């Protein structure tokens, strides 16, 4: 066990090499990671549940495969954290909510099955905003997650635990979910890579739905290659998700390592209004670097961006109000017993859901109500098409788009929690990716003067994750030198 390198330095490649050379076993890696994570977790509160038993069983299977000279999976022995909105068989899945505090799912999400089949080791379940609703991870029923880069600051949300765990080193890669920026924003705040694949690229089967038409499962890693590897393993058509795509999944590894000379990159002018000066400077420096690498960077316009926040909060709350109806006290949730049925519903949901979730259920119920549907939901769907069309138009001229992820770096815990509107507005640069369904990601691109990480957002055409990874990988390499 002493042969395992410091856990936070592990990468998929390093583990593969160590196992091959028999420097350490998969059980060594799992044990060291679990020990480290259990010791370090109180600092960040990233994990809600550890799954030592499941992890050691999986690690033993990998070691048996090695002993028997069998083929090893692409993620053999790689410690994986899973956002707690993704269900895991026999392993508590809370969705960050009191209402599911004791819920043990009877089945695994497709993404988890695919990763475990390739040898990934599930270390535990990661904290998040309740039902993935939030941008700071302060909406978790189990306490906020703290940013490893500055413990008094938020890690971003809603996949705050997933980003923080990878940044802290308590797992090598993790799964998050993104509905309006919930992967890219925490990745940016915590200084790790976070990927929101094309809508339909990864099966949503087993992802507790927040807003079905916007929800994505995506990976976090400490480098582009690790995140891409995780995506490749879990991507592809799943018969259990009718909206999952048939599109073939590329072998991202070799493709991303081609150079980016001549790549046409767009810089949407709408994404630089309202940006903090620090962030603006960092993003401009990053685009300069891309030019140095041979990219042709040009300003473009995504003219409907200004409607995105309004459009997003109508669609996502509408779908959420319906998706969360199943948490009703009748079957597997908490129940506040009462004399009448409607009282039981009220008490259960009143006690089980937090303030932000209730706010969104109310908003969503309102916008779908008779007499309001056309003015809100239907209109929002039309705006959504226009936003998607913006991207389609832009991608006729450019191969990739780069932009900031967030107007500002990680803010202090408690700073914005009383102001939901300003919190919603901070999603402005990320929600367009979800609304249009294009693949997008955050790759670290620098630090603010007070040492806070800042990420660069990269968008590509539908199902062209290869180009997105290529740009991000080349940029990442250039940042190292």
């Amino acid at each position: 066990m002493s042969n395992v390198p410091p856990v936070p330095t592990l990468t998929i490649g390093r583990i593969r090499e160590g196992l091959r050379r028999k420097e350490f076993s998969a059980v060594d890696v799992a044990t060291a990671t679990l020990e480290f994570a259990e010791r370090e977790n109180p600092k960040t509160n990233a994990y809600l549940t550890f799954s030592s038993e499941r992890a050691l069983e999986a690690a033993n299977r990998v070691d048996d495969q090695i002993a028997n000279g069998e083929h090893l999976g692409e993620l053999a022995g790689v410690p994986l954290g899973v956002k707690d909105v993704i269900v895991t068989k026999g392993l508590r899945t809370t969705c960050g909510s009191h209402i599911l505090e004791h819920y043990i799912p009877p089945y695994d999400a497709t993404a988890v099955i695919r990763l475990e089949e390739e040898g990934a080791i599930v270390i535990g379940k990661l904290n998040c905003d309740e039902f993935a609703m939030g941008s700071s991870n302060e909406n978790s029923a189990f306490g906020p997650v703290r940013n490893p880069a500055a413990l008094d600051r938020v890690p971003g949300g809603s996949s705050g635990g997933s980003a923080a765990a990878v940044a802290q080193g308590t797992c090598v890669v993790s799964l998050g979910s993104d509905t309006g920026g919930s992967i890219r924003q925490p990745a940016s705040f915590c200084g790790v890579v976070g990927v929101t694949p094309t809508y339909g690229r990864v099966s949503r089967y087993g992802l507790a739905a927040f807003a079905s038409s916007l929800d994505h499962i995506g990976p976090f890693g400490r480098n582009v290659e690790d995140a891409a590897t995780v995506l490749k393993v879990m991507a592809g058509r799943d018969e259990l998700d009718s909206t999952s795509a048939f599109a073939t999944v590329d072998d991202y590894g070799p493709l991303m390592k081609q150079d980016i000379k001549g790549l046409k990159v767009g810089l949407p002018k709408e994404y630089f209004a309202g940006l903090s000066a620090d962030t603006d400077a960092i993003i401009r420096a990053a685009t300069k670097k891309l030019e140095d690498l041979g990219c042709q960077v040009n300003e473009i316009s995504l003219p409907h961006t200004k409607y995105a926040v309004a459009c997003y909060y109508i669609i996502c709350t509408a779908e959420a109000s319906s998706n969360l109806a199943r948490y009703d006290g009748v079957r597997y949730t908490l129940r506040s017993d009462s004399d009448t049925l409607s009282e039981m519903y009220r008490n259960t949901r009143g006690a089980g859901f937090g303030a932000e979730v209730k706010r969104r259920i109310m908003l969503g119920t309102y916008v779908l109500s008779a007499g309001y549907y056309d003015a809100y939901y239907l209109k929002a769907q039309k705006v959504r098409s226009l936003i998607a069309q913006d991207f389609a138009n832009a991608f006729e001229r450019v191969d990739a788009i780069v932009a900031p992820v967030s107007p500002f770096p990680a803010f202090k815990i408690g700073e914005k929690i009383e102001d939901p509107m300003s919190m919603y507005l901070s999603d402005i640069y990320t929600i367009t990716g979800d609304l249009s369904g294009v693949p997008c990601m955050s790759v670290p691109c620098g630090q603010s003067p007070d040492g806070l990480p800042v990420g660069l957002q990269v968008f590509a055409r539908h199902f062209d994750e290869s180009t997105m990874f290529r740009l991000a990988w080349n940029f990442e390499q250039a940042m190292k030198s």
Partner: protein
Amino acid sequence: MNFRRKSCPNARALYNQNMSVLAVAEDVLRKYEPVIGLEVHVQLGTKTKIFCGCPVEFGAAPNTNVCPVCLGLPGALPVLSGQAVELAIGAAVALHCRVNPFSRFARKNYFYPDLPKGYQISQYDQPLAEHGYLAIFVDGAKKRIGVTRVHMEDDAGKSIHDGFKDSDRYSYVDLNRSGTPLIEIVSEPDMRNSDDAYAYATAMKQVMQYIGVSECDMEKGQLRCDANVSVRPRGTEKFGTKAEIKNLNSFRFLKMAVDYEIRRQVELIESGGRVEQETRLYNVETGQTVGMRSKEHAHDYRYFPEPDLVPLQVSEHWLHQVKSALPELPQDRRDRFVNEFGLRDYDAEVLTLTRAVGDYFEEAVKASGDGRATANWVVGDLMGLLKAAGKDIADSPVSAANLGELVALINKNELTGKLAKEILPKMFETGDSPRAIMEREGLKQISDTGALEAIIESVLAANPKQVEQYKSGKTAVLGFLVGQVMKASRGQANPGAVNELLRKRLG
């Protein structure tokens, strides 16, 4: 907690109220024209549920045919069953609907303990099929009832309010039925009385059974029916306010409920009241409809497109495949029976009531070569025997080929009709062919002149008076003598030959 619906007010009061309603005079009733539309839910006869692989099975132990999808567990997603779509398309085609090449599922949101997702997956603004009709026959007249739309949806589970020791405080939920595939068939408001409604529901059941979409067993909830009823002064165009009547679990109750509701509305209007748009439940005990929730408390289902399912596309090719696999529809078959075999309307109707009886008849005709005679035998004697034995035509001991042969034997003069009527019950008893029985029992038509002449001689000798009468010009007495010969031959004599021989003999 107990979530049973509000119980009915006391039955005596209801009974009294009922009597006063029934007192509406017929001439007052006739001033109003009822307008009725039906919503029929038909369970599709698939092996598995509409959005998951769980078996559809009646009577299984509670909550055993369930999975994450039909339990509404977090993260579970629906996947549409192709078989359910095919059956639904079949139903739509049978109802002469236009099947939309592109339709969409929508969520119908409401809370109820046996609705695990908190919404039903249905179709709303873009249903599977529209603009069809169903022909019905009332008092011998054919009428077309418009079918507005056919859409697919999943069923909820079942709430159980009684039978547990803590049923006074708790209700139980069985989710085996959750996710059972249904189609909802919405009619135009084309019906004008309870007989129309009864005929429509009956015809609907017949068609659905006929094409194998559903067994339509009402006791298992495979066919359910809601009625929209309103009245308007005769001669006016504008529809009155309608009430929706639920809980009609037999066609008889449908008819009774519609009749009651018409009278209730007429009385209400006549006494200066106003019909409320509301949902009413039919109470089997009192024969009345009782208001359930009024418009003020009406559900807002907050429909929106189901984001977990891609739009349903029905290609020309798929539609054609389903169409060509459909059996001939009962109404088409009835028309064909009339045209092809010259059947009377009544026989054609009876012979197309179920697919099985139609198939039996056609097979029998193949052996007999005589549609009309075969129809008489099937509709008359065979059905009588089946009814007496409590048997279905599918289990008939008399095979269609044997029945056809029986008819053919008569037509070939090898059997008299009378003899055939004796043979059929024996065929029914033993399952043997008519020839086998004839041979075993020596039952054969006697056409041999020598044998017949011997019988005739003995009959004439025994009836000298009638012979005298005939010879004195009362030729009508010949019929009596023929009858005596037939009797003496135990019905085996060929009546034509007997007639001829007698005439010649008495000459």
